[in-house]
């Protein structure tokens, strides 16, 4: 299976669904160490991404992710809008006309680099990077070992969830949670939580 246009669209659509379903959990996580809007932001942003896909009817999976990224940037606001928006746009650029697991791994890596570049966070700062970086690594390792798209995506989603769990003991060094200093310890990072959901959505839509 390659990541074709329909699958790319399905990924975003499914991500929008599960983020919406889990909106209040994300908001709760953000209320604890941020400003309590992450769930609403991303639900709004991903809904806009879906609308943008419906409107643009992209012809390639790369164009689909780029359109989704533009939709996210245009409607999310906050830190996560530019970060995820840039991430999806970079992934789309890398992805081009669709590709197998290895190519998708490269696209996810482009996503990671884009987010790192504009946000300036590194792993351990208690951000979405802490879920995304291990997810990308796991995806690439699985793909390198010959896993298909679904299997690699499952590995990525599992790694993202583990990365999320690993944010709990960290003290935030980026984003609003950093203002809390030591009080940010003991909570999951909301952006890492949404990244884990987005990775899980990829695993679901690539299931055979």
């Amino acid at each position: 299976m390659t990541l074709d246009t329909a699958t790319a669209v399905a990924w975003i659509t499914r991500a929008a669904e599960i983020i919406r379903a889990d909106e209040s959990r994300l908001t709760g996580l953000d209320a604890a160490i941020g400003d309590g809007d992450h769930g609403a932001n991303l639900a709004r942003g991903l809904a806009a991404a879906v609308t943008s896909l419906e409107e643009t009817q992209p012809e390639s999976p790369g164009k689909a992710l780029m359109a989704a990224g533009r939709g996210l940037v245009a409607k999310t606001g906050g830190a996560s809008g530019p970060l995820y928006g840039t991430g999806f746009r970079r992934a789309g650029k890398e992805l081009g006309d669709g590709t197998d697991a290895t190519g998708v791994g490269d696209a996810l890596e482009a996503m990671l680099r884009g987010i790192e570049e504009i946000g300036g966070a590194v792993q351990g700062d208690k951000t979405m990077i802490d879920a995304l970086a291990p997810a990308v690594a796991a995806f690439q390792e699985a793909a390198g070992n010959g896993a298909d798209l679904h299997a690699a995506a499952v590995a990525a989603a599992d790694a993202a969830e583990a990365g999320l769990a690993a944010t709990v003991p960290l003290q935030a060094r980026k984003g609003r949670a950093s203002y809390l200093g030591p009080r940010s310890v003991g909570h999951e990072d909301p952006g890492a939580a949404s990244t884990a959901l987005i990775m899980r959505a990829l695993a679901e839509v690539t299931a055979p």
Partner: protein
Amino acid sequence: MKKLINSPDAVIPDALRGLAAAHPGLNVDVENRIISRAERTPGKVGLVSGGGSGHEPLHGGYVGRGMLDAAAPGEVYTSPVPDQILAATEAADAGAGVLHIVKNYTGDVLNFRMAAELAEDDDVRVVSVVINDDVAVEDSTFTAGRRGVGGTIVAEKVAGAAAEEGADLDTVAQLAREVNERSRSFAIALHAGTVPAAGKPGFELAGNEVEIGVGIHGEPGRQRGEFAPVKDLVGYALDAIHADLPVSGDVLVIMNGQGGTPLIELYGAFAEAADWLQGHGATVARNLVGNYITSLDQAGFSITVTSLTDELVRLWDAPVSTPALRWGV
């Protein structure tokens, strides 16, 4: 949660409709969420700011002669999006470039940066000044840096006055930067505000607790402290400011309410601030006491101290006519 709203979704458009109805001198684009001055002065540097909603009168209340040319309010406590900031930038552009006054939050900084890039694509020169005056947050590689709070108002007023006088973009930007360097703020909350969509306060405090070093988004502060007389709370805030940038000479003080604190308390708090500053050899040369940068219905105060120069006093005193600040005209 009881609020004077129609529904959590309608809060921002309803408030913008009200702003439009109350101030016919402003252009208020309710759909795209842009507040701008009805008239542009050709050749004047444009000033744009924006950020999350819930801080009223910031930012729309500072659009008008002598301050901002346009403002872009986001969702409650959420920075605006690039297209919106771009549209505000275009509304403010009168051929001499546009200053973005951005509060230092990751979301604000990133969205304004994207908007600036889009504006430059359209051949509008943009300079951004990031305000980061909140001493409650350590400015180190371990944080996203200090937050921008009350100093924003001073920067907007001073830079706006200079732009009105015909100063060029670099001069106007440099003044905003100077204000930022000379301004420090600190806030303490007694009760958190309630985001309409969330329906409950951002944090819960016991009857004898206060939240020390809070920001303007209902985020918890750096620590919880014991409730104390206002003299002690104001002293705590001023100690923190003074430790960072020793106060001296003429200062501007904003004794700001967070939205749910009545004026009688703010005047009492200001009395303590004036005493404290006098005791430390500084003179309150200018002041504002009231709700200028708020957190919905949060109870508490923030205090901003700007160390003045003659030039800053002159620009502060220059005429201004906006919904929230008006004098000399």
